[in-house]
């Protein structure tokens, strides 16, 4: 009987929906599965779909802009932040967004979110304001609040044990149906504080296979397809119904180097490694995006951190061999370099969450072999990188590091290049000068001084190479022309559904 009922429901679900109100739903496909309703897990999906909001967000140029908080201020001693909420804001269950509810949501997010990494003293409600106190001056706090883990959910979203059991947010769209791990459907929320969106309904489908996503974009079944494989992009570009956007995002593919290993403890060895890499070849052949060869850690898109006149990292295998010889490495009988009888045999660990990483690793294997380094590639789980960092077993890790997790790259840099290094950054390498610079920037200084400090920080990283940048990142997005003009958010905070004006 239940089967018959299920059959009826399935047939009903197959009927065309959304024709009456605001046209056809906007259909988004992306590789990321909805791994749970807790903001710390798949919160970014609910953020991007416009379901839940943070107090602060960033515009596409990277400037902090008000979201659920209409304005904020910092006290003179720089320890107290005051966020004024929008009085007209409502949760999707109709309840008002009170300072108490926001403070409680933020307090909960400290357990697993980025706020847990900020030096917070307290989060409290004061009238209509949320007041956050820090133990030390912490300039990037508003940027930390823009992260999806600091999303504000209604008190009713939590069960008695404090677990999130529904995403009751404040955004322009509310959840109309959710089938984890694959599908989320949303509809316009009329109580939103901002201008009413033109899109009435939208859906998100997690499609793990890149080939399928591309074919869905091609057939018009997906209006917005994210995470396209470079090999499928050429074909999509020839399709007149689809516009392909390649948007540089603040993410860099880099080699994390164990600077404590005898292979990499000398800066000349790390420089040789960098010189052995043909970045232009990787960018053109694997990534199909010649501009993404990384001459330094930060891409030009991160204008505040990119140092235009820094000498770019280059490809020069002969110079690499010379530096390795200087560092005491001599070719052995089989052509592999040796130092004190130890052959230069190392392993690079990578993971396939980003499908191009294993391909890049095998190219590095060939390029390192050309200078006498025997590299084995281990494609494993992403957690093997932090695990190898902790137990010291990692030689090299090829990772795609996100510098906009907290939209200000400072957050990631503090985590990755502190005195103890970082799970995804430096390993057995630190620079007291860099630590000082990051701490000073964290406490907050005036703009001119900050610019000089950022420049110095990037120069230190470029000279010492605790990590070796390989390629910057273009987010490849296919948009159906029926959507009209589409703006892709390089910070991957929003899909921009609220501002879309579909032409059909």
């Amino acid at each position, binding site marked *: 009987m239940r089967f018959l009922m299920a059959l009826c429901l399935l*047939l009903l679900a197959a009927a065309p929906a959304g024709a009456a109100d605001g046209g056809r739903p906007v259909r988004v496909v992306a590789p990321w599965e909805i791994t749970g309703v807790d903001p710390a897990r798949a919160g970014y999906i609910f953020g991007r779909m416009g379901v839940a909001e943070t107090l602060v967000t960033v515009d596409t140029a990277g400037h902090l802009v008000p979201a659920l908080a209409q304005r904020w201020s910092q006290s003179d001693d720089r320890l107290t932040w005051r966020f004024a909420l929008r009085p007209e804001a409502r949760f999707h269950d109709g309840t008002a967004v009170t300072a108490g509810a926001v403070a409680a949501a933020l307090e909960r997010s400290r357990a697993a979110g980025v706020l847990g990494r900020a030096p917070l003293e307290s989060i409290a409600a004061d009238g209509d304001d949320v007041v956050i106190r820090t133990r030390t001056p912490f300039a990037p706090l508003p940027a930390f609040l823009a992260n999806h883990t600091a999303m504000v959910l209604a008190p009713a979203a939590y069960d008695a044990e404090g*677990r999130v059991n529904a995403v009751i947010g404040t955004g322009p769209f509310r959840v109309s149906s959710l089938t984890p791990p694959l599908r989320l459907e949303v509809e316009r929320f009329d109580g939103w504080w901002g201008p009413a969106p033109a899109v009435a309904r939208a859906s998100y*489908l997690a499609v*793990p296979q890149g080939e*399928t996503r591309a074919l869905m974009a091609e057939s018009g079944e997906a209006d917005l397809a994210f995470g396209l494989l470079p090999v499928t992009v050429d074909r999509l570009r020839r399709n007149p119904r689809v516009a392909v956007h390649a948007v540089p995002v603040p993410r860099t593919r880099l080699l994390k180097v164990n600077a404590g290993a005898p292979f990499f403890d000398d800066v000349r060895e790390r420089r040789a490694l960098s010189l052995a890499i043909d970045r232009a070849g990787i960018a053109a052949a694997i990534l199909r995006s010649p501009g993404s060869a990384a001459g330094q850690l930060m891409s030009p898109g991160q204008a505040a951190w990119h140092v235009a006149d820094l000498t770019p990292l280059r490809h020069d295998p002969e110079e690499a061999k010379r530096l390795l010889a200087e560092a005491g490495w001599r070719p052995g009988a089989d052509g592999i370099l040796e130092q004190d009888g130890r052959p230069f045999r190392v392993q690079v660990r990578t993971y396939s969450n980003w499908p191009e990483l294993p391909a890049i690793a095998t190219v590095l294997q060939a390029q390192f072999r050309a200078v006498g380094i025997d590299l084995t590639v281990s494609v494993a789980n992403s957690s093997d990188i932090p695990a190898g960092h902790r137990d010291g077993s990692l030689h090299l890790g090829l990772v795609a590091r996100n510098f906009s997790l907290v939209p200000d790259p400072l957050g990631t840099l503090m985590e990755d290049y502190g005195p103890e290094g970082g799970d*995804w950054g430096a390993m057995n390498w630190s620079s007291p000068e860099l630590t000082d610079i990051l701490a000073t920037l964290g406490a907050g200084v005036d703009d001119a001084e900050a610019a000089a400090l950022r420049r110095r920080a990037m120069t230190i990283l470029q000279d010492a190479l605790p990590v070796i940048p390989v390629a910057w990142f273009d987010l490849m997005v296919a948009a159906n022309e029926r959507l009209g003009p589409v703006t892709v958010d390089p910070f991957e905070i929003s899909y921009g559904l609220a501002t879309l004006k579909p032409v059909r």
Partner: protein
Amino acid sequence: MAGILRPLAGRAVQALTVALLVGLVSFALMHALPGDPAMRIAASRYGPDLMTAEAAERVRAELGLDRPMPVQLAEWVGRLATFDLGRSLVTGAPVAEELEIQLGASLWLAGAALALSMALGLPAGLLAGMRAGRLPDHLALAAAVLLRALPVFVTGLVLIIVFAVWLGWLPAAGFGGWRDLLLPGLTLAFGLAALSSRVTRDATAAVLAAPYVAFARTKGLPERLVVLRHGVRNAAIPVVAVLGLQLVYLVEGMVVVESLFAYPGIGHALVHAIIARDVPMVQGTALAMGLTFVLVNAVVDLLCAALDPRQVAR
């Protein structure tokens, strides 16, 4: 009646044994795998961007992963006795809830695949068997070899390109309606039909060469009645047995098909749970699969017994 009940009682005991063994073996295997479970769970929960060793330590403390293994296993057995499968370590949702969606979706997909494969494979096999050694037989063999040899991934992509991109008749991916079932169902059905058509062909050819068919013909029955009365039922016995066995192929194919067509299902869920070291989810999905096998075997037994009462008498 007792003749049919006895094997069913046997299957019930089998189901219980399967449940316990599956739980034990999956628990043991998950702990035998290299790598730190807390790290894996944290990576699946938070993704590579937010995953840190501290996050893994929090996961370890929250889930009590450093408790002795027998304690953790006893906990699972205790819960199972009250029909509680626990909560997924990754999503935090009850395993039973996730299974309801995923097993349900998988059953629909398996049903669609089986129905389509029978619609394709049985007539093809019957035709080939009745024309054994002639052109239809050769064509059916060539098609079966080709379809069985193609990886599911390739068949699926070709079907998407033809039916979703070129013709625009069917959705390339997704779930929820019968149209979403057709392409993944067909992808699996091709592989299934390739095998079942060969078994049908051999069974049909063998039955049609049997003395009782020769007798039926000699006594003057029209060919249609010879095939329908004497041929089909006898030929059906091995075919039904093979359909049961094909469940193995289905589960294997589903892992690929579910991810290719973005279709929720138990194969996909199991693979992800293993990667994430999500032990309750692995135990739950393996349990559901094991019990499905037992159920299908019981149904096949019953069908075979109905087709051939001699088996029960024996």
